[in-house]
């Protein structure tokens, strides 16, 4: 399969190897490589605004992929992902300032610390599931928010915490252009890792736990181990995302990591497509760009003379917020399987064209 240039009309896979390939066809593989190579030149073409959006997509994307591994692939639920993201941010800043560990090492270390914390909070997952687990993770969210505000030694308490920029061999990645490459590298690395994880024995075990835990157990999949591992990996991803966020901004404040952030992560993976790595990316791009697109739509009206009157601007502000909510609701109604599903349908349409069935 992966040696073909085009997808065949029909399923001709005859081995697990073919079934598990990351890139279905040669064309997809080459397009991906080309896209990543082209992305390397983005700072030459795009201004800081676009780069910021990309950087946002990458750190949020990494964290959202973690949540998708937990929710989409393992069938667990977490309402505390925003807090884990925050923990990663604080942990990286703390490791750097308290122990003088170079930032490049702090980021993965922060991932591991967050993984430990995530597994600690994920322990109830061994016994409870569904709504009960949702509430347990919600508790994690509030416990950690409170911890950020209190633990002066770790997070700087109310004053927040300082995060040095990433530097490598004396070169500081402290501009949007330079940080873009860090973000791009992290994104590609973590997504390839995510893809490979899902092809591995552990990844398949996650899916088995999700699809039918009883059957999985009968097959010899250790439920507790994999549920906990899924929490750990998910937190690792959110920790890495959070650490990137911290070193990009240079400053971390407890205010940002509320339940709203956790819900936003859930929205990203639901819109993108649960249990789909590609979908995670699409969902994150959608959620990052939607407010910006709405803002520029509203901005067009602001350009006019009447558009900048306070009464209208106030109204527009609410229209913007409502429209974002509306789009999300419409998505849930008309595209519950997410953008990834829509993308597959578009591909199928062209594959079978002109025969639509």
């Amino acid at each position, binding site marked *: 399969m992966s040696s073909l240039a085009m997808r065949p009309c029909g399923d001709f896979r005859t081995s697990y190897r073919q079934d598990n390939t990351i890139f279905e066809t040669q064309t997809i593989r080459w397009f991906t490589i080309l896209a990543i190579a082209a992305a390397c030149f983005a700072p030459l073409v795009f201004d800081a605004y676009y780069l910021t959006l990309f950087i946002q997509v990458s750190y949020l994307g990494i964290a959202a992929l973690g949540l998708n591994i937990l929710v989409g692939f393992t069938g667990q639920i977490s309402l505390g992902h925003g807090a884990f993201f925050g923990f990663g941010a604080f942990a990286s800043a703390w490791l750097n300032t308290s122990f003088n560990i170079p930032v490049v090492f702090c980021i993965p270390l922060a991932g591991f610390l967050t993984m430990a914390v995530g597994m600690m909070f994920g322990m109830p997952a061994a016994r409870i599931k569904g709504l009960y687990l949702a509430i347990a993770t919600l508790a994690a969210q509030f416990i950690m928010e409170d911890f950020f*505000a209190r633990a002066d030694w770790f997070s700087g308490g109310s004053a927040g915490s300082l995060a040095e920029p990433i530097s490598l061999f004396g070169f500081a990645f402290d501009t949007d252009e330079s940080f873009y490459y860090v973000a791009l590298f992290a994104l590609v690395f973590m997504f390839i890792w995510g893809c490979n994880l899902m092809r591995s024995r552990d990844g398949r075990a996650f899916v088995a736990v999700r699809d039918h835990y009883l059957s999985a157990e009968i097959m010899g999949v250790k439920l507790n181990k994999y549920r906990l591992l899924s929490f750990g990996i998910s937190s690792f991803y959110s920790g890495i995302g959070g650490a990137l966020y911290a070193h990009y901004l240079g400053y971390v*404040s407890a205010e940002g990591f509320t339940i709203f952030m956790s819900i936003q992560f859930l929205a990203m993976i639901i819109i993108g497509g649960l249990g789909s790595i590609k979908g995670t990316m699409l969902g994150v791009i959608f959620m990052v760009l939607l407010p910006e697109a709405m803002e520029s739509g509203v901005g067009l009206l602001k350009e006019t003379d009447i558009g900048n009157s*306070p009464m209208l601007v106030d109204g527009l502000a609410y229209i913007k917020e409502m429209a974002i909510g509306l789009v999300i609701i419409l998505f849930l109604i008309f595209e519950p399987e997410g953008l990834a599903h829509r993308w597959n349908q578009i591909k199928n349409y062209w594959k079978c064209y002109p025969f639509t069935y």
Partner: protein
Amino acid sequence: MKLSKLTLATLMSIGALSAAAQAEDKVFVGHLADMSGPTAFVGKEYANGIRDALAYINKNGGIKGTGLEFETIDYAYKVPQAIASYKKWKTRKKMVAMQGWGTADTEALISFVSKDKIPVFSASYSGHLTDPQGKNPHTKKPAPYNFFYGASYSDSCRALAQWAAKDWKTKGGQGQPKFTHIGANHPFPNAPKKACAEYAKELGFDVQPPVVISMKPGDFKAQCLSLKSSGTNYGYIGNLGGSVMSLVKSCNTVGTDVQFMSNIWGGDRMIFEATGEGIKNYIFPTMTPFWDSQASGMELVKAISKMSDANGDKLRPHHYIRGICSTYYMKEAMEWAKDNGGITGANVKKGMYARKDWVPVGLEGVCLPATWTNEDHRGIAEVNIYKGNYNKGDVSIEQVDTVSLERRPEWLGY
């Protein structure tokens, strides 16, 4: 003849070009506002003040002839949106200064604005924003490009503690009065907690463990009971809006005898009207007089208000007026910059240091005299303290004290 026609045409085109260049003589100011997020209760009013002031400045000659281009973005207190808007303004609009809003976005932008040299005038009054050089060990991060109009949360709380100490003596209180911090466990209410508790102790208060109430309105009877059992005499409220209302109501039910004092966002006419009966002798600080004040500068404030309320019917709260002050300090710093090398972020910052005890022209009696220096961004060290009551539909607010705080070096950035 031909030549003269050509010359004429050239001259005309040069003239047209220079006119176009003159028409394009504009600088951009970004304005981040929370009009639909969790702090919209006061955020909207403050934002209206800034927008009206910017529009008024523009309508009346701009910055010595340079037009102000501005854009208000409601970022609903979401940090990523604030960052994206900032980047957009910086790269696309060549922003020279920004009017910001909350603690989260202001802090997230500290490094960017210092690197890009763009002064930010925020409504986050956290003490650590006042230390531009990072001299105080408590200061996590020097904030050389951050300014705000008003006393910091810590300084306002210290002023309230001073007032409370005086009040205790006047009332003939015996022994050590008890002081309690009340607020959500959140950076905004927490900002002055430690600094204020230390000063209260210094003034002779018996500082009680803080009482945590959520930022959202709710039933706070349990917290009121702990205020009652600890025998708190003076309670400093770090929250705003709905939660203040709920607290006052819950404590009235429980029957506490606490003198409530709030931060600058937790006291205004809207709170009294919304809480209604039961809010008694409520103490809060302000940095400007109220709408019905006779101060000469109120004429300009009322003219500015007409930008969005042509009939002049609206009663604007003091947050609105504070937004105007914040904008006008920026305006005058820009004027100074224009005369001294051009309106750039770095020059606007220098403009903020150019004068001492300075009140923007036309706002006499409205904005308090302020001084910013390269080493000290505590613009104001004076706090006016007001007492408010609600009596059968009437809101009465009277000034009870003015506290001038020392500029202690150890308080810088703390």
